[in-house]
């Protein structure tokens, strides 16, 4: 600055036409200008220049340069006696130096700030700066620190402090008057100063808010660390914590009160975090002026976290201290502790037989036994599907306490807070729970028991709420598989059925459940397009199936008309009522309904069926009656012929042509005479329909038997017949 001014002066001199070659005259000239200079107030210009520079450096992101210039600006304001502005700037800049840890620079700024606050008689700032200058960051010598401390105590005793050294004499006089006013005005002034982690260790130049009164970071005079004895406590155990205070100033300092506040005052019975919200230390007393130092959280300040880190890294061997002394650096702040609920002393047992079968009423037995020494009250049970699982599972799971009714969709997946009553010590109770799972898969079930108990902690009785839970995973599987097929009356595979021709429906139930199943009954509900040939009776009444066993049923059905729908005719439904073999009688059976497949039905013009006995005997006449029905609306010309067979002699019309009227029946009677014993081929009937050339022999073979079993002739007393056979 001086150099610039001098060079400027040189220019002025040269402009003024001075002869610079003469050193004597130059000296005189310089002195003259210097004298003139004294009368000009440079501060304004300097400050303007400085603020321009600040803006420039801010633009180019040089935060430290900016801070340095702001310090210079603050000092300039001080020289210009504009203490308010000076203080504002210096305060703003202090944060940066605090966070960076440059204590020498911070001390010099603080000294200037202290002078400003003294000259303005600003009580709060004066106290705050004094406290900081007394603390561990300040690089002042001990004698200076004692001086500041004495002044501070004077202020707190409601007296004026001594003036700061190196202050302007006139300013000091006016300051003393201000202080005298303050003294007379004083009532009980309480100043609260927050000592806490104020600025994060961020070198990006965080903007500190200018409003600083309650959040002044008053460092290093007194350090505070609060610590809970353990990170967690049970509800029935008294919570203990310690508050450690360390003073860094040269003289002993007396505090009048210590308060610790928490985030909640009432002991609750649930799990929560207990925080120390703040620690307050009162300096001075309420009748005079007092300063309340306030630490948020468990203590610590802007430098303590770094110090703690260094302490933890240190390998210094800790000196052995007497038992009640603690090494300051080894105290770690533990500002919060977790309160957990009392350890429950009951047992919860679950009894069940997994896996569950889909749709069955699965029984879960919950046994609760109390091992507490006192009676437990208000025992409540919550049971059901553990929340948080797949939404599909939740929809398809139903829980109920009443096993006698089948639960449907309206039942919930989780039953909450079922009151169970009280339990005396050692008493046990059982509760049966029924679960119905609609889909296969694995489900997690939760049983949660909560109760209240009175306990005594340090001669005070409190009510604790305890709880215990058990989780169990239950698999659900399919109980059985049903296979349905259509066969002809000869138990041959049927691709299509024919109108009015009976065919068979066969159902096969294969048990896939690991548990034995009892099939209570089965029922066939036919669609209107299908009729039964005879009585539909369940053939599976009260059948017990073990794993892997299968049960079959057979029904004879007939379809009266082909129907117009493509894809066949609806057959109906097959309902099976079943339950676990080991289930109690009062548990209802579950009905599983299976939709039967459609069957393709075709019209056939001519239906032929045969009446013949089930077996023949050699040399005994075997009468056979063939019925031919005309299923069409037209008269059919039919050619019938019988092909002889070696095993038989037959009598009847070997070849005939006839006409059958629509809807009528023609009977053909033959007499077959078996010649050989054994499974013999019958003489085959050939029917030829003139209008339906594809009514072939193949088709006919479905309806009429092609072979018959012929028994040998019985032994007779007559030898002759034996000889003849």
């Amino acid at each position: 600055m001086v150099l610039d001014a001098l060079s400027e002066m040189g220019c002025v001199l040269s402009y003024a036409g001075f002869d610079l070659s003469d050193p004597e005259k130059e000296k005189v000239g310089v002195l003259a200008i210097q004298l003139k200079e004294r009368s000009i107030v440079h501060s304004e210009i300097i400050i303007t220049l400085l603020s321009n520079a600040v803006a420039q450096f801010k633009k180019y992101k040089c935060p430290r340069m900016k801070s340095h210039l702001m310090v210079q600006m603050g000092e300039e304001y001080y020289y210009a006696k504009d203490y308010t502005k000076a203080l504002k700037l210096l305060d703003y800049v202090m944060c940066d130096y605090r966070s960076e840890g440059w204590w020498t620079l911070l001390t010099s700024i603080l000294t200037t700030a202290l002078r400003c606050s003294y000259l303005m008689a600003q009580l709060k700032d004066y106290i705050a700066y004094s406290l900081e200058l007394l603390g561990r960051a300040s690089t002042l010598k001990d004698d200076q620190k004692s001086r500041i401390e004495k002044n501070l105590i004077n202020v707190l005793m409601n007296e004026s402090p001594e003036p700061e050294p190196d202050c302007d004499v006139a300013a000091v006089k006016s300051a003393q008057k201000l202080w005298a006013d303050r003294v007379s005005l004083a009532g009980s002034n309480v100043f609260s100063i927050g000592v806490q982690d104020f600025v994060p260790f961020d070198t990006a130049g965080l903007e500190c808010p200018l409003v600083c009164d309650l959040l002044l970071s008053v460092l290093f005079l007194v350090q505070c660390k609060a610590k809970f004895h353990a990170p967690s406590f049970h509800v029935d155990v008294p919570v203990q914590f310690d508050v450690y205070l360390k003073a860094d100033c040269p003289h002993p300092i007396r505090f009048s009160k210590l308060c610790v506040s928490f985030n909640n005052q009432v002991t609750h019975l649930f799990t929560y975090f207990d925080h120390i919200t703040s620690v307050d230390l009162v300096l001075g007393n309420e009748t005079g002026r007092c300063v309340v130092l306030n630490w948020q959280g468990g203590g610590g300040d802007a430098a303590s976290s770094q110090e703690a880190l260094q302490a933890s890294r240190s390998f210094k061997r800790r000196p052995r201290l007497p038992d009640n002394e603690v090494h300051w650096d080894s105290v770690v702040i533990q500002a919060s502790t977790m309160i957990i609920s009392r350890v429950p002393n009951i047992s919860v047992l679950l009894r069940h037989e997994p896996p569950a079968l889909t749709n069955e009423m699965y029984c879960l037995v919950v046994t609760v036994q109390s091992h507490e020494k006192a009676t437990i009250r208000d025992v409540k049970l919550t049971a059901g599907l553990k929340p948080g699982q797949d939404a599909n599972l939740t929809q398809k799971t139903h829980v109920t306490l009443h096993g006698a009714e089948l639960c449907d969709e309206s039942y919930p997946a989780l039953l909450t807070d079922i009151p169970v009553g009280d339990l005396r010590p050692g008493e046990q109770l059982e509760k049966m729970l029924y679960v119905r799972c609609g889909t296969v898969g694995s489900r997690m079930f939760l049983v949660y028991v909560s109760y209240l108990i009175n306990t005594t902690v340090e001669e005070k009785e409190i009510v604790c709420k305890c709880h215990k839970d058990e989780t169990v995973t239950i698999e659900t599987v399919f109980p059985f598989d049903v296979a349905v097929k259509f066969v002809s009356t000869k138990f041959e595979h049927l691709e299509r059925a024919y109108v009015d021709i009976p065919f068979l429906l066969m159902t096969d139930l294969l048990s896939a459940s690991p548990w034995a199943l009892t099939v209570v009954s089965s029922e066939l509900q036919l669609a209107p397009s299908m009729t039964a040939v005879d009585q539909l009776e369940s053939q599976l009444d009260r059948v017990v199936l073990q794993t892997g066993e299968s049960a079959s049923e057979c029904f004879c059905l007939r379809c009266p008309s082909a129907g117009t729908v493509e894809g066949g005719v609806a057959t109906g439904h097959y309902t099976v009522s079943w339950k676990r073999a080991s289930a109690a009688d009062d548990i209802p059976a579950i009905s599983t309904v299976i939709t039967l497949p459609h069957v393709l039905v075709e019209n056939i013009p001519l239906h032929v069926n045969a009446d013949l006995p089930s077996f023949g005997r050699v040399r005994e006449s075997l009468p056979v009656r063939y019925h031919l029905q005309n299923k069409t609306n037209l008269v059919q010309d039919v050619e019938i012929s019988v092909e002889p067979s070696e095993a038989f002699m037959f009598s009847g019309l070997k070849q005939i042509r006839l006409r059958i009227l629509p809807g009528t029946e023609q009977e053909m009677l033959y007499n077959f005479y078996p010649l050989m014993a054994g499974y013999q081929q019958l003489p085959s009937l050939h029917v030829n329909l003139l209008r339906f050339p594809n009514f072939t022999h193949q088709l006919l073979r479905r309806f009429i038997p092609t072979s018959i079993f012929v028994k040998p002739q019985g032994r007779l007393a007559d030898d002759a017949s034996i000889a003849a056979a």
Partner: protein
Amino acid sequence: NYPLYIRSVPTENELKFHYMVHTSLDVVDEKISAMGKALVDQRELYLGLLYPTEDYKVYGYVTNSKVKFVMVVDSSNTALRDNEIRSMFRKLHASYTDVMCNPFYNPGDRIQSRWALLGTLLPVGCLPGELHPGAGAFDSTVTSMMIQVC
């Protein structure tokens, strides 16, 4: 970014040097971020002349562990060349490494020796702190460098 060791000669106007060192950190930061991933093969980064003010020149040097050395030199001392500054920094770095290797030294502590030697014309940027054995060597290295330049 707090100072580990700072010494200046002459001891008056120390505050000015402290400020200079502090503000030069801005330039150091900028240089580090600008370097970025480019020069990884060079293990130490000699930053060169950070910025010249009217009376002084400021030189910077950064180690791999982001410990910064800053040297403020009188401008009138024109005999000092870049190579010499570079070698001085290397000596400083070696000395600092020795201090680090000392098992009694806690990383992050300030370096201070029992003997505060009066130096010569050259101020060097670090700050005194706790006492511990290894700093004596560091201090004497610094002093010898100061004497050498004088």
